[in-house]
């Protein structure tokens, strides 16, 4: 009876080793596979993407002007960094979600429709993105994401985000935290 009880409470050594091996295989496999889901517009370092807190690294820094006198003191501004292929959708949806809390301007890496925002800057050379410290995505192309500028015209948050509109609630959370 006592040996049965011991068998139930302390598994055999071979079973314990099997548990570790299976856990190792599953964990390594899952982590490796998950990494393959990152797209070309994601950050090379996922730890740097959508960190969720203000003033990371060298921030805050003064915000470079984009368009229509924005960003400016007095009101928070969301600066979108977009590529032409999805600019229209992202501009429309982000503006719809955050316009009540902040001005929205866009920096485009090429000409595109972006009618709803307060101002648009076409900057194929990427100087504005560099001034905001936007990181280079996996595919090496222009950054897609956004920066959040506070009402003193200081950049407080910046991140690559291939789909800013899909995460507009996060932008609202960051704005609420300013």
């Amino acid at each position, binding site marked *: 009876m006592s*040996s049965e009880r*011991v*068998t139930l*409470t*302390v*598994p*055999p*050594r*071979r079973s*314990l*080793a099997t*548990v*570790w091996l299976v*856990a*190792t295989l599953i*964990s*390594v496999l*899952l*982590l490796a596979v*998950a990494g393959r*889901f990152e797209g070309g517009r994601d950050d090379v*370092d*996922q*730890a740097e*993407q*959508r*960190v*969720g*807190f*203000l003033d990371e690294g060298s921030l805050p820094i003064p915000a470079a002007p984009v368009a229509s006198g924005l960003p400016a003191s007095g009101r928070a501004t969301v600066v979108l960094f977009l590529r032409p292929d999805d600019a229209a959708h992202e501009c429309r949806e982000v503006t719809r979600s955050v316009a009540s809390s902040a001005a929205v301007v866009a920096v485009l890496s090429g000409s595109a429709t972006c009618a709803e925002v307060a101002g648009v800057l076409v900057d194929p050379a990427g100087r504005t993105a560099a001034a905001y410290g936007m990181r280079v995505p996996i595919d090496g192309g222009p950054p897609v994401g956004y920066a959040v500028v506070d009402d003193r015209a200081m950049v407080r948050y910046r991140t690559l985000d291939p*789909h800013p509109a*899909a*995460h507009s*609630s*996060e932008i*609202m*959370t*960051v704005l*609420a*935290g300013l």
Partner: protein
Amino acid sequence: MTAAAVRVRGPWLVCGWCVIAVLVELGLYASYRGHDARFHWFTHAFVGAAAALAVMTAVVLIRRRPVPRPLLWPMIAHLFAMAPDLLFSGGYVHRGWMNLFLGHIRVHFVPGRNWTWLAVFLAALAAYLVAVDRARPASAAA
């Protein structure tokens, strides 16, 4: 109830908590995936599990027997580690004090990122399993 019924039902009754733990983790992964945040699920899962396994190892060494419901401990620690993400979903931006939740912010920035935490988790798991093995009475050693 017949003896056969007991034998059939027994494993399911014993392992109900295993199923719950796995389903909770799958649900959490699906939620993070839905927010394009798989990276963060791995970080907090590995950190939480490693912390739980460290505690479990200490408990085994003290009590000289395996902990009850071992899958629940890492799951609960994972929930604790990720709690600031629930606050973020509720509209609260991350702040420094949230590092109280097993280093919720800082843990993302260790060299090697999630691969480092995977190694820590596996080391903690190995330590726990060795402790369990050593808790075996000498008369029952393999």
